Every structure is written in structure tokens, then in C-alpha cells.
């Protein structure tokens, strides 16, 4: 650490706590802000990773001129920046790609695969794209900051229901965002600026990116109990207790359906209890809806929890993603809806959302949203979509059944019924990290170390191999 500070000082970067060096009045940092920055810097500098150690021997980190640099920049101003580790989820695919085994199986990333193990572009998407390309009147002018208007309206209807009173009363503001992540981030930033309770409760466990998104948005992140490893199901009592003891007004992140990573969803009765508890404590629901239609195969059924909350007249936020249910992963299509008490509030909220978006990326990308709008507004395409969606959901459900049957057939010890009880793309197998390592090493099965597998990556052909691997892992490591 000392070495890095020395190189910083060599560049005249005095410690941020000595504010006298930065005498300009435009720096309005309080000492606590500079402490924060210093802490952040220190955190990054002392971050001990194996990669970091090898780099500290790098001659470029010491003060020696490289051939192409002038004497002024003998040392890099980026010398103190360490290499970040690979993203834990995406790192699984990196490792998978390196494996030469012919029987390797990638059950890491949550992207749908066909029975043949190939990525899928929906027919309706291809049709919609063709329509767009053929339409000679189409231009590429900037979208409004809030995105494609038609798309926003259709997205709100999709999640809230076409007959939603909240929509009819103009109490919903919907802004196009960059898929689920972008919607969550914009919502988080808005809340951090305008909401009075800056704590968000996220379920334990949850998607790995959630805490990072909300922390960077400016919220403080706490957790509520969710998954019960003993039952491999919902720790409902724990959930109620934790939400019950949350401070009034706190924000609560809820997975609308197909909880990631566990696949464990509350029942409708449990949702009703959650709703009543939350409303009684004025807790603010923030739904993450990344799998509408993908979980059960029915768009309406998967939207039920969200609609229940909206039906009681209360306020909530909903982040939508079309990455999975329309297979538009790379196009980054999503939307943030904020259901407010009144049209006037919704209008003011929307104006403030624009102030969050403009300095982040100005306006959202047009292509994916145009595809979605084309499909949602066309009766035939919409119907075709629901059929393709159901087919994807059904294939996943079938994989669950096949895996369950295969484990039963092998007499694998343990209760594996959670495989067919859990819902959506992922199964939380309950395997521990030792067993996971074993499965990767001996059977070339790639999954995240928490025991999560993506059912979308399985096929009838590969189920037996996975079942063998699980069986071996469970019997080798009791």
C-alpha cells in the first residue's frame, strides 16, 4: 500500500484529507466525503488478490520511463488501479469455454438454450426485426429521455394488466430503461434522491448484482430471510419477522416470480400476507420482474403478485426485463414503472426520472424497444409470442421433471422434490461448494458455487450426465 501512495504522491496527488491542496471553491467535499474517498481508495489498494500481487512486481509500477512516454509520465497515473476479479456469474462461462472435455455442460448463465443447446431468437422477434428493417420510413432520431412512448404504454399494460385502474387513472409513470439492471439502477437512484427512507431490503439470497446496483445508486442495503436450506423452500416465518421489524417506510425488493437464484416463490396466499404486512408498515415494494411469462408459461399468472399490490391502491416500483421472455438479452430492453397515488405525483416523478437518466446515458436505445412494441401491439405476433414463451417455459418444466425422475431412478439420497417445486430458469440444488467443485472437476459441470443451476442449459440428452454427477457428488460428500 505504501508503494502505491508513493506513486500517487509523485503525481502530486496529496491525500484527500489535506484539502488545502485543493483550494478551489468548486470542490465542495466535506471531510466526511473525503474520508469516504480515502477509504474507498484504500480499499482498492489493499485488495489482496493473486493477480494484484503479480502486478506489484511489474516494472511499470515503479518509476522508470517506458520507451514511448515522455519524462513527465514515467509512471502511469493508473498504477494504483488493481485488476478486478471476473464477474462471478460470467466467470463460470469463461471457465467452461476453456474446458476441452466433450461432455462439458454449462449450467451457469441464465440464458435460455434450446434442446440442442443453442441460443434462441424467437420467431416473432425475427419477424418484428424484418418488419422494422423493411419500413423505409423508420429513422434513428434520439428517443425522448423516457424512451419509446408506445413501448412504455405497452410494457405497463403487460405487467399491470390492460384494465389496470392505475393505468387508466394515469397514476403510472413508465420509463424505458436498459433491461432489468438499468431499470433497477434508475429506480434506486430516484429513491436515493427523493424518498425519505434510504434502506432497501433484499432477499437472502438474491441475484448477485442487486446489492451492487443499489449501493451505487446511493441506498443502504439490508437483507431479509428468504431461503430455507433445510426445506429448500421459503423461510416464510423468517421473511415475515424480518420485514415486520424493518423500519417503517423501508424499501423492499421483491422478485415478482421465479426467484433468482432459488426458484422458490411464495404462494398466492403468502403473497397476500406479505402485502398486508408491507402495507401496514408502509414498506415500499420494488418488484424485479425479469421472468414474466417465463416462470409458469402464463404472462398473467406470473404478474399476479405485482397486480395484487397495485390493486390495493398503494404505490410501488416495478422493474421489467424482456431479456428472457422475449430473448432480447443483448438488446437491453426493460422498463421502470412507478405506480403513484395520483396522476400529478406520477407526472412529477417522471420529470425527476429524466434528471436521473439524462446524465447517465441521455436516452435509451431504440432497437430492442421497437421490437417489443411491434410484437405487443400486433395481435397475431402477440399470440405467437405467448405460444413461443410457453414452449420455453414448458421445456424448462420438462427438464425439471426429467432431472427429478433421473435422480429418483438412481436412488440418489435426499429429497429432490424441490427441483420440481422450484420455478423458473434456476434451481437451487442445495449442493455445497465442495460438491460443486467435485462436479466441475470430475464431470465437467459448470455452475455457480452456490449450487445454482440454470435449467435452461439442460437438454434431455444431458440430463443423465447431470444426474450422474449429482449422484456421485452427494454420495462422495455426505
Amino acid at each position, binding site marked *: 500500500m505504501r508503494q502505491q501512495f508513493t506513486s500517487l504522491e509523485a503525481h502530486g496527488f496529496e491525500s484527500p484529507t489535506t484539502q488545502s491542496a*485543493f483550494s478551489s471553491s468548486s470542490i465542495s467535499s466535506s471531510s466526511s466525503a473525503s474520508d469516504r474517498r480515502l477509504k474507498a481508495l484504500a480499499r482498492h489498494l489493499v485488495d489482496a488478490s493473486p493477480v494484484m500481487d503479480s502486478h506489484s512486481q511489474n516494472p511499470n509500477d515503479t518509476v522508470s520511463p517506458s520507451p514511448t512516454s515522455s519524462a513527465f509520465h514515467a509512471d*502511469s497515473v493508473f498504477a494504483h488501479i488493481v485488476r478486478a476479479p471476473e464477474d462471478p456469474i460470467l466467470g463460470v462461462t469463461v471457465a467452461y469455454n476453456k474446458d476441452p472435455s466433450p461432455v462439458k455442460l454449462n449450467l451457469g448463465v441464465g440464458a435460455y438454450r434450446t434442446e440442442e443447446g443453442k441460443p434462441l431468437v424467437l420467431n416473432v422477434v425475427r419477424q418484428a*426485426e424484418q418488419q422494422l428493417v423493411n419500413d423505409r420510413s423508420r429513422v*434513428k432520431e434520439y428517443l425522448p429521455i423516457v424512451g419509446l412512448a408506445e413501448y412504455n404504454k405497452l410494457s405497463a399494460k403487460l405487467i399491470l394488466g390492460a384494465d389496470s385502474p392505475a393505468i387508466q387513472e394515469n397514476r403510472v409513470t413508465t420509463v424505458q430503461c436498459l433491461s432489468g439492471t438499468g431499470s433497477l439502477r434508475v429506480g434506486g437512484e430516484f429513491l436515493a434522491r427523493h424518498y425519505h427512507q434510504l434502506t432497501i431490503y433484499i432477499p437472502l439470497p438474491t441475484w448477485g448484482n442487486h446489492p451492487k446496483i443499489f449501493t*451505487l445508486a446511493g441506498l443502504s442495503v439490508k437483507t431479509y430471510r428468504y431461503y430455507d436450506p433445510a426445506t429448500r423452500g421459503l423461510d416464510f416465518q423468517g421473511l415475515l419477522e424480518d420485514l415486520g421489524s424493518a423500519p417503517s*417506510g423501508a424499501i423492499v425488493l421483491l422478485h415478482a416470480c421465479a426467484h433468482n437464484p432459488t426458484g422458490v416463490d411464495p404462494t398466492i396466499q403468502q403473497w397476500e400476507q406479505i402485502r398486508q404486512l408491507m402495507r401496514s408498515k*408502509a414498506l415500499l415494494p420494488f418488484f424485479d420482474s425479469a421472468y414474466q411469462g417465463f416462470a409458469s408459461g402464463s404472462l398473467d399468472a406470473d404478474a399476479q403478485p405485482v397486480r395484487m399490490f397495485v390493486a390495493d391502491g398503494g*404505490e410501488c416500483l416495478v422493474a421489467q426485463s424482456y431479456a428472457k421472455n422475449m430473448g432480447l438479452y443483448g438488446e437491453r430492453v426493460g422498463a421502470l414503472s412507478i405506480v403513484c*397515488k395520483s396522476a400529478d405525483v406520477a407526472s412529477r416523478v417522471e420529470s425527476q426520472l429524466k434528471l436521473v437518466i439524462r446524465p*447517465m446515458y441521455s436516452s435509451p436505445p431504440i432497437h430492442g424497444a421497437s421490437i417489443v412494441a411491434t410484437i405487443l401491439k400486433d395481435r397475431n405476433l402477440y399470440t405467437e409470442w405467448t405460444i413461443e414463451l410457453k414452449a420455453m417455459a414448458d421445456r424448462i418444466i420438462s427438464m425439471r421433471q426429467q432431472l427429478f425422475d433421473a435422480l429418483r431412478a438412481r436412488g440418489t439420497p435426499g429429497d429432490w422434490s424441490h427441483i420440481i417445486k422450484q420455478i423458473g430458469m434456476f434451481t437451487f440444488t442445495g449442493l455445497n461448494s465442495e460438491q460443486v467443485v467435485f462436479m466441475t472437476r470430475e464431470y465437467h459441470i459448470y455452475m455457480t458455487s452456490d449450487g445454482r443451476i440454470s435449467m435452461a442449459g439442460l437438454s434431455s440428452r444431458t440430463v443423465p450426465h447431470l444426474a450422474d454427477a449429482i449422484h456421485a457428488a452427494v454420495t462422495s460428500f455426505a
Partner: protein
Amino acid sequence: MTSTSTSTMLSLASASLTASLSVHENLKGRLKLGGGSLSFNKEKANPFIKTKSFSRISMVAAIKVSRFEGVTMAPPDPILGVSEAFKADNDQKKLNLGVGAYRTEELQPYVLNVVKKAENLMVERGENKEYLPIEGLAAFNKVTAELLFGASNPVIKEQRVATVQGLSGTGSLRLAAALIERYFPGAKVLISSPTWGNHKNIFNDARVPWSEYRYYDPKTVGLDFDGMIADIKAAPEGSFVLLHGCAHNPTGIDPTPEQWEKIADVIQEKNHIPFFDVAYQGFASGSLDADAGSVRLFAARGMELLVAQSYSKNLGLYAERIGAINVVCTSADAATRVKSQLKRLARPMYSNPPIHGAKIVANVVGDPTLFNEWKAEMEMMAGRIKNVRQKLYDSLTAKDKSGKDWSFILKQIGMFSFTGLNKAQSDNMTNKWHVYMTKDGRISLAGLSLAKCEYLADAIIDSYHNVS
């Protein structure tokens, strides 16, 4: 709990309250409201409860008022709001010189032919829509860095550039700002006075302090070079200096090559870090290489620098949001580390960037035939702007008898012209002449046709001479 047969729905903002109100004693939970004053009458009763019968379950919203009641209406964006106002205007003579989007002589939006070709190819190929890596499309990152620095540039050959696909210029600037905030805490960004209106918003939201360096000289309607140098010199060592690579927005005034050298000198002297915003490569002079001259000059000195790129204007891909942040480092190792940290900042913002625009750019720039066609279209667009400048200048000189020197119109470069009109005069342009522009006196020549030059000249002359 009581249930009412009619549901009562009240909007907090509405002045009138409906007659049937139900009062609830047992409201659980306190309600705290955010900042800002509430504008409703404080009645003893709780008028804002909605109760609704739903079979035998009565669903009570325990929330009395909106949690967002204190949220105020934000003003419209000063730049994008201009187009909205323009749309609302029904006058036939109206002219939109607000936002910097290229228009044809017929004042229509323009989709480049190479873009249409690329999109057709993409649809024919039927590629998949899988997630891009966090850093974006590799093929795009490669060609975008090469376009900027030149494929044979040492920074490219030595792999010293960290390139991450970003959401056009704004998104790329924001990633860089986030990097500065995290790794250069307390460091300041110096921005030109004036500069693009969104720059300060980006740094504010990223919590990066900024201050201005003198740039525009209203007396000469040119560059206040001495002021610029003095202010850059006076800034604390190790500041980031935001420079417009070419076609300065909003003024259209660029430093000369000699001036660029001197700017580089003072930046090196103070160990500042140059931070280029390159939104108009190819659009300024018509030549992609010439417009990258300033960036390449700095890179050639072995300096480390940041460069944000945008393909909104030069490839007309405005709505596709395609750009990149490039960080030139002294070593390939540093570039690798910087890239990894940029990824760490992108992941909680939007996970990974959109494919469509990236593929278009990769296809156009990566294919020699399409690339040459692009260069031709680029020259055509830049050429039209130059013609319009000339016509406007001619019209102004012909019509204005005061002897005012309008030659700055010809000297300025790129999409915009800083007319020197103040706010009141700009308002006159809009209110009297239905010419829409930004309040700082900036007009977008990309939105001007040869046919409208005379009308615009009349408007400018009137506003300049008759309004103070």
C-alpha cells in the same frame, strides 16, 4: 374494518374532496414524508384512504398520502426541451435549430445508406441476441479504437488502450466520470466555458467536482486562448482537462494545431490528464483522420488520456446509443487493469451494453467497401453544413448594413454555431421568428437548409440589433 360500497379514490393534488370519506382509526405504522411541503388541507379526518371491497376481504391502503408527494416538477432539459417546444409550435415558418441532429436539405432526418446496408446484412445473417460481455462487442471495441488512433498507432500496437463500449457519448463520459470518482478521489475535471450542457450534469451525478476554464471570448466570438491556458495552469496538479476533440459544442470554435501543442504543453507541465470528448469525428472537417488530429497529437507525446467517442452524429446512430470510452495507458498491463475496473462500474449500471448499434459500427467500419462508402457520406454531410454556413454568412453580410463582422460563422466548425446572441435575443428568435435554439445562443446548422438561410439571417439581424 369497515367496507364501503363505493370505493373512494382521492388524488392528493386535487382540490376538491369527494363527499363520502371513510375514517380509519387503527392505522398501523407511522408515515414519514419526504422533503418539501405538502399542499393539502390538514383535516382531522383521514381523507386520503381508499377502501375497496373485494369479495369479503377489504383491502385497505394504509398509506394516507403519496410517498412521493414532496417530489417537485423538474424543469425540461434545456436542449431536448427545445425540440418539444418546436413540436408544439404550429407556425409554418418554424425552424428547429435546437438539438444537434443532422437534417437533409429537405430538413428530414437522415439514415445513412451504409447503415441501412449493414442492418440488412445483420438481419440476413440472423445472428443471435446473446448478452455482450460487460465491455461490449469485441469487434466494435477493436475498430473504434483503430478509427480514433489509427490502426498503426503505437498505442494500439502496444495494446495500451482500454476500450469499453458505452452508451454513446453520454454513457462513455459517465463511465469515465465514475472511474475518476473512485480512483482519483478529490480530483477535479476542468470543463470549458461554455460547454455542452450535459457535461456538468454527468460530473455532478458521478460526484466528481468540476470547475471551468475560460474558452469562449464574446468580444472576438473566438477562442480566449490566453484565458484557457492560464486557467488550466492554475488548476491543481493532476486535474482532468475535458477537451472537445473537434467541433466544439456549443461554440464551433476549435484550437489551431499550434494552439493544441501549447495546450498539451501546459497539461504535461501540470501533470493533468487530458479527457477528450469526441462526438464529431469526421463531421467537423469531413475527414475522419483530420478530426482525430488533436487526440493523436496528445497520444504521440506518450501522454495517458481518456477519450469518449460517440457514433450518434457521424454514423447517424443517435437512438442506438453507441460509443466508447478509451483509456490510453503507459502499459498494456495498466490498460488491462483499467478495463477491468470500468467493467466493474458498468455492471451495476446496465450490466452490458446494447448490441445493435455496436454491430452496425463494426460492420461499417470493419468492411473496406462500406467504410469507403461511409467516408463519402460523411463528406457529404459535412459538406452540406459548410455550404449552409457559407449561405448564411452571405445572407447576413448582404442584409446587415451595420458592418458587423459575421465571419465567425465561417470560422466556426462542425454542427453548431455560437451566434453571440444572448438569452433575450434568443428568446426573440423563438417568440417572434419561431426559430428554436438553445438559450446560450447556439444554433444547429445541421437543422438549417439553404432555402431557409435568408429567413434565418433576417431573424438573427433583427434579434441582434433590436433586442438587448
